[in-house]
């Protein structure tokens, strides 16, 4: 049928009698092709972001929606709660140590593997495997490892390294760092993969040239290789950064935010506030704050890459 009829030709006349060039089928087709995804994203991503932001400005509490406009009251209350203040501090602490841990371990492993020693492929895979596991599984396993009665503490005791024993997840002073260890274990393999790809992408000639100019191996790395890894590092920071800001599943399984508020995170707080406490408006406010935090990280990166592309 479609082949028998002529392609639809749209001719629009603007006031003033000037006619537009008729749109060709080739011009319409791409628009039709991307329209479904544009519409879906517009509704399900941006529409819902808008809806959430709107909900955060209402008085909705309980199972029946209440769209009375209350301005920024929910935000005001939210920032006054001890729990959310703790969330912010915890997120920053966790993100900083998580990023540092992943980048240092990832880079270290990548440099070692890049030496192309025998068996490096094997290690490359071993380091990558944790990435294939979900945070739920990682969290469960590490919760057992950190259990004071049969985990690491027992191992240290048997090795006569009792001074290494710790309260791990049971003490408010160590819980967040224990959580960070589990997260780093999971994601540093990903960092390694990215750095390894970056290292392999740097032509050997550049290092050769540095060596010819009399640079030591360390200097060649420090002044030639390292600066060239900058874009990779930035990508890794962005990807890991938004994972760590939105972290939920690992905390849910390992500590549920405890002891006290010591490992509570905005994502978990949002879930509990919304679905346990039925404070839908306040939950939406947490979601909005979370979005702004991630935007703070992502937007400069997008601007930076976009500028890079237009300059090219």
């Amino acid at each position: 049928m479609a082949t028998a009829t002529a392609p639809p030709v749209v001719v629009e006349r603007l006031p003033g009698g000037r006619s537009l060039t008729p749109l060709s089928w080739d011009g319409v087709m791409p628009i039709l092709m991307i329209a479904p995804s544009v519409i879906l994203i517009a509704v399900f991503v941006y529409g819902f972001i808008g809806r959430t932001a709107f909900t955060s400005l209402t008085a909705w509490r309980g199972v029946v929606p209440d769209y009375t406009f209350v301005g920024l009251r929910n935000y005001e209350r939210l920032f006054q709660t001890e729990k959310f203040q703790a969330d912010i501090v915890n997120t920053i602490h966790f993100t900083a140590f998580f990023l540092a841990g992943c980048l240092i371990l990832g880079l270290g492993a990548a440099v070692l593997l890049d030496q192309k020693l025998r068996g490096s492929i094997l290690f490359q895979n071993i380091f990558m495997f944790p990435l294939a596991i979900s945070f739920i599984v990682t969290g469960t396993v590490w919760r057992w490892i950190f259990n004071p009665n049969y985990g690491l503490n027992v191992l240290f005791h048997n090795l006569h390294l009792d001074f290494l024993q710790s309260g791990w997840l049971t003490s408010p002073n160590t819980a967040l760092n224990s959580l960070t260890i589990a997260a780093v274990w999971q994601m540093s393999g990903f960092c390694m993969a990215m750095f390894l790809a970056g290292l392999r992408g740097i032509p050997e000639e550049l290092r050769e040239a540095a060596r010819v100019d009399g640079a030591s191996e360390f200097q060649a790395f420090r002044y030639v290789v390292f600066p060239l890894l900058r874009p990779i590092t930035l990508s890794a920071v962005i990807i890991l950064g938004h994972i760590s800001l939105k972290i939920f599943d690992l905390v849910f399984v390992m500590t549920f935010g405890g002891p006290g508020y010591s490992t509570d995170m905005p994502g978990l707080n949002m879930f509990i506030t919304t679905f346990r406490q039925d404070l839908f408006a306040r939950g939406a406010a947490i979601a909005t704050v979370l979005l702004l935090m991630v935007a703070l990280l992502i937007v400069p990166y997008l601007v930076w890459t976009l500028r890079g592309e237009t300059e090219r």
Partner: protein
Amino acid sequence: MGNERWSRRQFVSRAGKTVGGVVLGLSFADFLAACGASNAPAAGGGKLEIFSWWTAGGEADGLAEMFKIYKKNYAGVEIVNATVAGGAGTNAKAVLKTRMEGGKPPDSFQVHAGQELISTWVKAGKMEPITDVWKSENWDKTIPKDLKDIVSSNGDVWSVPVNVHRGNALWYNKKLLDDNSITPPTTMDEFLSALGKLKSKVPAPLALGSQGNWQVQMLLENNILAAGGPDFYKQVFSGKASFTDANVKQALAWIKSMLSYVNSDHPTLGWDDADKRLINGTSAFNIMGDWAKGYFTAANWVPNKDFGAAPSPGTTGKYVIVCDTFGLPKGAPNRANAINWIKVCGSQEGQAAFNPKKGSIPARTDVPASIFDPIAQQFIAEFKTDALVPSSAHGSATPDAFASGVNDEMGQFVINKDVNKTASNLQKLSDEFLK
């Protein structure tokens, strides 16, 4: 309507509503609602959909017993057992909320008596009163008034209690107590001195599993009951008395004293891990609801031989109730069947079949005690004469928003042990959510 197949037009309109629900939806919750709606059975005739979180063990067995009775009395009705697994019903409650908001209620659903029923569902106008059923079944004669009050508001009754769990129970390892010639304590002073006596004998005399903090919240409510009595308890949990009162501070101070006798790994332990310490003999006492009994008996511990139970210290003559009920949502697809279900839930036969399996005691006072284990018999006798108060930790005395906030606050208290600060923070929650 009935069982006829959907016409194309109906299908399109329903599908449209479902999609519309998603598009206009407010959150992921609505998406769940839409999914729930499409799974819901078609309205009409011989069906009855019962929604609960009784998915495993004795709870599921008890529910199956009640289904048997229903099928015997109302042959030809197909029962749809809509259960959602997950600790203490938190997942089920989320699914239920989305179904109710999506206008697809089950025929009847499990709900804790008290605020979880009244402030969540009745105030939202989602329930139908069952006052007439209550009258025609003459439940005033067999179900205590204190219990009726908890499921009533504005002169109407909104659901029927099936069972009663006890929140204020003290469990002990009988051998450890006998060996150290300690009699089960009844007052807080006796309890604390017993703990002191045991401190050098067992690693941690009092077992605590505080993962999720609600166990500490139970200590709080039990201790408030011990310090202030039932009237003060009811006032403070309805916002009429202040949490900065001396009684609450006394309750907190007692928790603080107890905390010096507990196992240090408690933040990572659940309530069952704590009870395991009693079985292992590494702790002598645990304060927990009577579902702990099921854990002990599953480990082949014999009631009153290996372990014993008493009201939590200072609460003799008082009973903290955690009570499951079934109500009638507005727009239940099979209303007549649902009303028959509610009658089964409130019947002597139904409660006698359900409760021994569930490990709770019946809400009715005329179920023969002889079919229960000795500890349940002891609790049944006390239930008849004790002052009954609803549990706040389990959503009966206070709305979820408050209970959840207290939960967090108790998590903080375990760390900072600051009585005055915690009391004033609790009062802030009371100001926000109980007024």
